[in-house]
C-alpha cells in the first residue's frame, strides 16, 4: 500500500519550512512545493501534484492562511492547518481536515501524518487519532473518532 504523502507546505518562516521538510522526509513523505504568501500558494499548489497541504495561518502577507485553506480545499486538495492561533480558524475549519497546533514536535507531526495517509488516500482513516491533531467537527463525526 502506498504510504507516502506528497505535501505542499504554506509557511512564511523559511526555517520552519526547512524543519517540516526534514520531518516529512524522515517520516517517509515528500515535500513537493512551498509558498510563503496567499498568492504563491494559490498559483503554485494546483501544479504541485500534492496529496495534502500543510497551511500556516499567519503568512508573509498577513493572516491569509484561512483563505488559502478554503481556496485549496475548493480545488480538491486536502488541507491541514498548522498554527499557534487556532482561534482564527472558523468553526467549520474552512474546509480543512484538521489542525496541528504549534509548537509541534517531530513525533507529533509523524503521528499526525500516519493518520493522514489513510485519511487522505483511503478514508476512513485506520490509524488512531494522535493527540496533536484536532479533526474538523464534521469529519470527526463522520469517522467516529475523537
Amino acid at each position: 500500500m502506498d504510504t507516502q504523502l506528497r505535501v505542499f507546505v504554506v509557511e512564511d518562516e523559511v526555517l520552519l519550512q526547512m524543519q517540516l521538510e526534514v520531518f516529512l522526509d524522515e517520516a517517509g513523505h515528500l515535500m513537493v512545493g512551498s509558498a510563503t504568501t496567499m498568492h504563491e500558494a494559490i498559483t503554485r499548489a494546483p501544479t504541485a501534484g500534492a496529496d495534502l497541504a500543510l497551511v500556516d495561518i499567519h503568512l508573509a502577507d498577513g493572516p491569509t492562511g484561512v483563505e488559502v485553506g478554503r481556496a485549496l480545499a475548493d480545488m480538491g486538495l486536502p488541507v491541514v492547518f498548522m498554527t499557534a492561533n487556532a482561534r482564527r480558524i472558523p468553526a467549520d475549519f474552512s474546509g480543512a481536515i484538521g489542525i496541528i497546533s504549534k509548537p509541534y514536535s517531530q513525533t507529533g507531526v509523524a503521528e499526525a501524518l500516519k493518520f493522514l495517509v489513510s485519511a487522505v488516500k483511503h478514508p476512513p482513516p485506520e490509524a488512531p487519532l494522535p493527540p496533536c491533531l484536532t479533526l474538523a467537527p464534521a469529519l470527526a463525526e463522520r469517522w467516529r473518532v475523537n
Partner: protein
Amino acid sequence: MEARDAWKLTDRLQAPSGKGDPFAAAVRATRMPMVVTDPGQPDNPIVFVNDAFLQLTGYERHQVIGRNCRFLQGPDTDQAAVSAIRAAVESKTDIAIDILNYRRDGTPFWNALYLSPVTDDDGELLFFFASQLDVTQRKRAELDVIEERDRVEAAVAERTQELEVALQARTDLLHEVDHRVKNNLQLISALVLIERRKATDAATKATLTTLRERVEALSAVHRLLYRNDNVVRFDVAGFIREFAAEAAQARGKPPVGLKLDLDSISVAAAFAAPVALMASELVRIAITHALASGTERYISLSIKPTSDALYRFCIADDGTAEGIITSIEPDQKSFIELLATQLHAKVHWNGYVGPSHSICVDLPIDEPPRGG
C-alpha cells in the same frame, strides 16, 4: 330621589354655626379636598366640592359645579391613568391612583386621587365620592430617585463597556504574545534541528537530541496552557499524559507500553516550565530504561496527592530487570536535583513498589488563587 338630594342639603348647611348634620359640616371644613359627582346626570357632573378643593385647584365654586372632572387633565396627563379612572367609574368600583392634574392657572400638580362609588341600601349607585391630595413633593422625590437611578445605571453601563473594551484589548494582546511565544519555540526547535543534522559525532548529536527533547517539553507546556483557555493553571496530569504518549512513540519500535495512574493536579502557570521539565526528564529516563533493558514490558507513571500540601509523581519499571536508577546519567540527576531545589521538591531516587523500582518526587501543591 330623597337620597339623591341629600347633598344639596349639605351645601346649604351653615358649617361654622354648627347647625345641621355634623358629618356634612366636617366634609365642608376639612383640609382634604373632596368632590361628589352624580352619575345619574349626563356626563357624571360635579355636584359638590368643598373649599379645600377650590383652594387646591384655584377655581371658583360656580366654575366647577355641573362639569365633568376631566377639566383637571392637561397636556402631560398620563392617558393610561385616565383610562383606569374611566374603567373604575364604568364598573362602579373604587380606585386609588396618582394622576397629573392642572390648576386653573395652568400649573400642574400630582393628585393622589381616591374615587369610590356611594350606593344605597339596595346597592343602587347614588354618587361618586372623590378625595384629592397634592402629592407633588412626594412624586418629585420619586421621579428624582428614578432619574438618579437611570443616571447611575447609564454610568455603570458606560463603565462596564469601557472595561469590556479594555479586557478585550488585554485578551487580544495575550493571544498575540502567546502566538509569538509558540512561534519562537517552533523556531528554536528548528534551529536545534539544523545543528543536529550538521553534527557528525555521536556525543554532539546526543547533546542536541537532549536539547531538542527539552525544548519540546516546553513547547508542550505552551500548547496545553492555551488549549483549555486557562493561562493561570497548568494541568500537570494532562501534560504527562500527552508528553509520555509522544515520547513512547518517538524512540521505540514497538513503542514502550505505558501504565498511567494520573490524578488531576494543577499548578500555577509560573511553575509550569520547571514542573514540565522535571516530569519530562523522568519520563524520558523511564522510557530509555525500558528500551535499554530489552525485557521491560511497560513503565508506570503515577501522580497522586499525598497530603494537603504535597503531591507525588512516580516513574516505575515493571521489575523484570535492573532498577531504573541504573539508567540515569549523572547530568540528568543533577538537572533534576536543580529543578527540585527551585520547586522545593524532594526526590526519592531508589524506591520499591513490590518488585518494581521507582523514582518519586514530592512536590508542593501551590495555593490556588482565591476567588479566581
